């Protein structure tokens, strides 16, 4: 019996207890309010929403709390101990087990007090949260093939059946099974290849100095460091995934409301994408000569610098001009807007020059744009002041 409670308390985090207490108090108050207002059935909507959120968070926390990828001290513990993938994880399993079933069942019983719509589909929200946690863990541990599988599969939760709970649950369970299989495979590859995983203290300190904005202009801009750049394969993948998601969302709205999102919505996305590319490439990297200086000196085009404008212009053409032209020739909605927006995303990510090439070889001048150090640094400073006061 003692082991039962111990195991249960391991997965039953204090936040879950607080959210359940919050749930009960809120529902009790709302029940009174809605009864007083003469709309007692409204409690069902709120209770459903709140239950879904609790179970989603619980599912997510099951991965977040038990997966070693998210805890630095856990990684150290596993690295220094004789643990290997054939042994159980010391802080508990990542996969769901009987304690989860007990908690979900207990919660479903609790909803008898404040009923929800379709009580029996509540576990589905646990699985959604769990799968979301798994997706994040794949990203952290750089298991990109499983990220791709998850992104590919996720829309099938609603597409193309729209309203079949059985199919949704089947897809979610399939994703969960793939996730658990993935964990089994990549636990064998421990320790994984992530930045903080390699215990390269110097690299970590370097990055920290830049991340916390201690090292700034010009040292940060002129030292040799890794500059994140997206290559063609990843650009193609992100654009294809965006197309897939946009298509499903578009389709879902159509099924729900009988109308598709306005084309201008997609064009706005392309506009913001172009602005993002423009800002990322030009905010810190200014032209060697001012705008008016170009006219005065007759150097209207500076090829080494102006190449940076090709990306945003291409995005605007693909995302705004192209759909308007396609609409004129009565192209289908998904070709006109979804495809053109995906092409715009691809161009934003992969149109040359890459950000790394621009950073190192662009004919620009690196501007002094001071950024306030991060909160960590300020907190350290406050701590120091307090320590000095205490001394």
């Amino acid at each position, binding site marked *: 019996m003692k082991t039962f409670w111990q195991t249960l308390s391991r997965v039953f985090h204090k936040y879950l207890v607080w959210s359940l207490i919050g749930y009960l108090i809120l529902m009790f108050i709302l029940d009174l309010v809605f009864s007083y207002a003469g709309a007692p059935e409204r409690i069902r909507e709120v209770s459903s929403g709140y239950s879904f959120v609790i179970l989603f968070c619980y599912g997510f926390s099951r991965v977040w709390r038990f997966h070693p990828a998210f805890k630095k001290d856990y990684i150290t513990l596993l690295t220094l101990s004789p643990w290997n993938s054939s042994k159980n994880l010391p802080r508990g399993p990542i996969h769901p087990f009987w304690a989860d079933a007990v908690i979900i069942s207990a919660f479903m019983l609790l909803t008898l007090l404040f009923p929800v719509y379709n009580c029996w589909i509540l576990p589905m929200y646990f699985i959604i949260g769990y799968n979301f946690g798994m997706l994040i863990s794949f990203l952290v541990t750089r298991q990109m093939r499983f990220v791709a599988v998850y992104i590919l599969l996720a829309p099938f939760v609603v597409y193309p059946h729209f309203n079949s709970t059985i199919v949704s649950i089947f897809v979610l369970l399939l994703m969960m099974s793939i996730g658990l299989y993935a964990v089994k495979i990549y636990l064998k590859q421990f320790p994984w290849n992530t930045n903080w995983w390699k215990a390269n*203290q*110097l690299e970590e*300190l*370097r990055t920290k*100095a*830049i991340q916390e*904005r*201690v*090292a*700034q*202009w*010009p*040292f*940060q*801009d*002129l*030292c*040799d*460091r890794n500059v994140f750049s997206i290559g063609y394969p990843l650009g193609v993948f992100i654009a294809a995934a965006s197309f897939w998601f946009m298509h499903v969302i578009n389709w879902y709205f159509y099924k729900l409301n009988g109308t598709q999102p306005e084309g201008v919505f997609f064009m706005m996305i392309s506009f913001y994408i172009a602005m993002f590319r423009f800002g990322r490439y030009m905010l810190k990297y200014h032209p*060697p*000569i*001012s705008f*008016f*200086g170009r006219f*005065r*000196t007759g*150097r209207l085009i*500076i090829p*080494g610098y102006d190449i940076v404008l090709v990306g945003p212009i291409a995005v605007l053409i693909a995302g705004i001009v192209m759909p308007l032209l396609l609409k004129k020739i009565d192209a289908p909605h998904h070709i006109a807007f979804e495809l053109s927006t995906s092409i715009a995303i691809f161009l934003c990510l992969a149109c040359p020059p890459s950000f*790394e*090439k621009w950073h*190192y*070889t*662009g*004919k*620009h*001048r*690196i501007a*002094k744009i*001071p950024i*306030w*150090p991060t909160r960590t*640094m*300020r907190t350290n*400073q406050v701590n*120091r002041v307090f320590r000095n006061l205490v001394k």
Partner: protein
Amino acid sequence: MIKVENVWHHYGIRPILKNVSLQVEEGELIALMGPNGMGKSTLLALIGGLLSPLKGHVEIDSLKRRSSIEAEKSIRKKMVYLPDRPFLPPDVTGREYALAIGRLYDVEEQRLMEQTDKLLEIFDLDKNSDSSISSYSTGQQKKIGICAALATEAPILVLDEPFSGGLDSSALLALSQILKKLAERKDVTVVMAVPVPELVEPLAHKIAVIAEGKILACDSANGLRQQTGCSGSLLEVLETLIHPKSRENISEYLKG
């Protein structure tokens, strides 16, 4: 080796550097001198990689700046550029700042800490090293910038006016002695802009004189004397080079 070849640079329509060429051999210490606003800082920023020339190019150890990612990365590993006024994060302590800059250049951690401690002591910052930079005076801010640049132990130092900006006499002495030692070691190349001739003469292997966007001369102090036929102080040599008529003008002015 640093090689500046036929470099042109404009600010708006004003040409600030006109077809400038300069060569700095490995282990040399070169001081750029000349009137204000004549392109010393611009030339240093071009060498340092902050600016890109409109025409011409800069080579570091036979690698052309901004020609390829690999070449640029290789250059950046061995060169540190300290502008006149670098951005100093106000909430960070001097020690944290110097260590952070040193880490960018992959200095071994233990050595970095020791060197930083020594530099902070040399520049009389040891008592303030754990206070935030916002509490530093102008001179102390200048000092911490210099400490950070020296802590990198980069083999090529590009320093814009390291002696100006409110440095006290002990810091001036300390910096000139450090630079002198580096010049003697012959494994560190230094290019710096210095407005005060007295500080330059005992340090620099060569002095490059810039005026009107052009390099008027680049030689040792004695070489410049021979070139100008002026045997006086370096200040007089510079005046002869930059403003050949200034002595006559002053005499005429004093005559009334």
